[in-house]
């Protein structure tokens, strides 16, 4: 970090926000609305960060849209539901309570101050909705379509999202693409109407523009500037290859994403590698490094927003092969997942947050992470014929990069697994699958598995792998982002290693300590807290007394 004495400011403002995802923009809007002058510094050349890349869904209990639809919810139910999932892993239980209390106010605030509107996708429930306090629908909010043409000269600066077609969740944008209306997709693409994460970011950024907040693209924050009292008073960024010093009279918000693309930080804090991050490659832990330099205490560092990753090697994003997000096909009948030894190791119907945790299970007998590296999704022609699998559409020939064979033996040889082992695994699976049971891993018993397969019951989740052709897809260790960072208080203000507040320093979103520990209650478990703490921090920042720069 830099001492204030050695710096000449290129720009002075009240609040500096690092990043331009959901947490960042909500902070900027609230701070500007409360009267502060705000500057956003974005590392990449596009707005939106990890949020634009995502479904854009906040998970918010007791929200206004639930009330409109007559869906009952309460603090107690949400608390009961979350408490079971976090299991004591939450770094500060007070913040969970605050999240439940304030999330709904944040949604009201966005309704009043921004063009962001949400709807409740029918049947899209909490991922463990059958747990006490769970809801079958209502807490995961689906951004309504937003025309980026409203952003004027910024229309084409919202981060491109290769994951989701411009359909809402309710229209099949993420849940079942094989049933999507691709004519509607085409129409929206032509009119630059977006949905999901891009719609959320588009609506938020429209308000940022309306408040006159200045945004600098391709201007990464690199170092905090501190005064003699240990207060953060600005940032050294880099703009056009030169140092760019921005003074912050009130404070600096670090909302610049996680560290999943920084191999060294991942190896330092997580229990195993993230070989295929599924986020923009700009998330290299810049904010975490800055916060550590400033003496921040850290929280929830061993956690990530996990997600199994798939790859279609013919598709690239920003110059590298694109790591596809989870495929709902892996929860469907006529498929299983095996490790590099050819053995099943997980309930394939588990959530994308829970399934990858099995990659990092230590095997005392082999002294290895037996499921780490070399996992495969094995499926047959029955599934191929009815589901969109990664980028393979039903009815179309599987591409040559997908291992495929008329026999399990032949398939095993292609993927370097002992044929006898894979045959035994599949024979055993088939024996149980014909009776629609999975005594080994409990597949078919999870609410999420049923939801991911369209709520069609056990036959949609468990079925034998018996009809040639047989296929194998590699499954990689992915993450939507990391979930640990500087510890924060109820205002999003960063806490030091000594347990004191670091004046002028705030964090939110994936750049901050995840307040839910390792829990992911439903779609929007990342964005819900991110928006809520951005909303809280923005107000606190704006109402902080100005410092002398």
């Amino acid at each position: 970090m830099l001492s204030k004495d050695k710096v000449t400011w290129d720009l002075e403002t009240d609040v500096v926000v690092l990043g331009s995802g959901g947490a960042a923009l909500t902070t900027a809007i609230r701070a500007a609305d409360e009267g502060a002058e705000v500057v956003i510094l974005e590392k990449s050349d596009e707005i939106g960060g990890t949020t634009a890349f995502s479904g854009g869904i906040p998970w918010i209990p007791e929200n206004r849209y639930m009330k409109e639809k007559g869906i009952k919810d309460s603090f107690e139910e949400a608390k009961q539901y979350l408490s079971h999932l976090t299991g004591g892993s939450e770094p500060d239980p007070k913040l969970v309570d605050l999240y439940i209390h304030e999330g709904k106010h944040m949604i009201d605030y966005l309704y009043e101050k921004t063009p962001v509107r949400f709807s409740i996708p029918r049947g899209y429930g909490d991922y463990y909705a059958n747990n006490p306090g769970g809801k079958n629908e209502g807490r995961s909010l689906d951004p309504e379509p937003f025309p980026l043409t409203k952003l004027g000269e910024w229309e084409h600066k919202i981060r491109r999202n290769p994951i989701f077609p411009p359909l809402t969740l309710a229209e099949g944008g993420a849940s079942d693409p094989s049933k999507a209306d691709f004519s509607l997709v085409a129409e929206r693409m032509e009119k630059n109407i977006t949905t999901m994460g891009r719609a959320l970011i588009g609506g938020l950024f429209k308000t940022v523009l309306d408040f006159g907040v200045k945004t600098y693209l391709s201007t990464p924050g690199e170092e905090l500037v501190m005064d003699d009292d240990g207060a953060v008073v600005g940032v050294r960024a880099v703009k056009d290859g030169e140092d760019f010093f921005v003074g912050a009279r009130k404070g600096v918000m670090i909302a610049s994403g996680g560290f999943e693309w920084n191999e060294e930080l991942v190896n330092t804090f997580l229990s195993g590698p993230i070989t295929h991050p599924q986020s923009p490659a700009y998330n290299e832990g810049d904010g975490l490094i800055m916060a550590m330099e400033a003496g921040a205490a850290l929280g929830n560092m061993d956690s990530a927003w996990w997600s199994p990753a798939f790859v279609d090697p013919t598709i690239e994003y920003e110059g590298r092969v694109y790591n596809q997000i989870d495929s709902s096909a892996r929860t469907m009948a006529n498929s299983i997942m095996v490790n590099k030894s050819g053995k099943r190791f997980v309930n394939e119907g588990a959530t994308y947050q829970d399934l990858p945790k099995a990659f990092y299970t230590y095997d005392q007998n082999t002294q290895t992470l037996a499921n780490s590296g070399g996992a495969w999704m094995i499926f047959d022609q029955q599934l191929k014929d009815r589901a969109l699998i990664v980028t393979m559409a039903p009815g179309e020939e599987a591409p040559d990069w997908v291992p495929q064979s008329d026999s399990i033996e032949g398939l095993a040889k292609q993927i370097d697994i002992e044929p006898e082992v894979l045959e035994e695994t599949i024979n055993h699976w088939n024996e149980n699958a014909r009776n629609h049971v999975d005594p080994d891993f409990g597949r078919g018993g999870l609410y999420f598995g049923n939801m991911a397969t369209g709520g069609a019951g056990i036959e949609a989740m468990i079925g034998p792998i018996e009809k040639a052709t047989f296929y194998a897809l590699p499954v990689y260790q992915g993450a939507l982002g990391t979930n640990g960072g500087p510890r924060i208080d109820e205002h999003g203000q960063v806490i030091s290693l000594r347990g004191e507040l670091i004046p002028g320093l705030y964090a939110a979103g994936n750049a901050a300590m995840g307040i839910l520990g390792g829990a992911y209650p439903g779609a929007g478990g990342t964005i819900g807290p991110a928006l809520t703490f951005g909303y809280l921090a923005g107000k606190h920042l704006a109402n902080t007394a100005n410092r002398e720069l």
Partner: protein
Amino acid sequence: MPSGTTEVVLDLPIENIWDFVSDMDKWAPLVPGYIEHEIISDMQSTWTFKGDIGIMQKTVKLQVDIKEWIEPTTVTFDLTGLNENFAGNGYFQADALSDHQTKMTGNLDITAKGMMGPMINAILKNFVPKTAEDLTNRIAEEIVAVNQ
């Protein structure tokens, strides 16, 4: 149906144009996103290139079947996706405007099929004309360069 046609007038005799265009190896590297090509026969070849469709970059393999080869004016061809469900066609046309001036026309017409066809065609609507334009212009520039 995504398509694009581009015309360029060159101050060169039609024979010079044909000499360049009739040899696939000469202009293959000028195809936007070109990775490789393989000549199977006089009438058939396969191509691999990386198309930048804005949201992402996609490596596409396709087969080109020559339908007409009329020296020195016309080549028409069909396109078939090898790793994707699309088909199309195109043509190259050279028209002598004088002994020393030739109009060169390039055309591409590609349609995605299958479940996601409408969505992909929306993307191709911009991509195909731009590719036709880029390729025709690059070939024109190269022909001028080699004839200087």
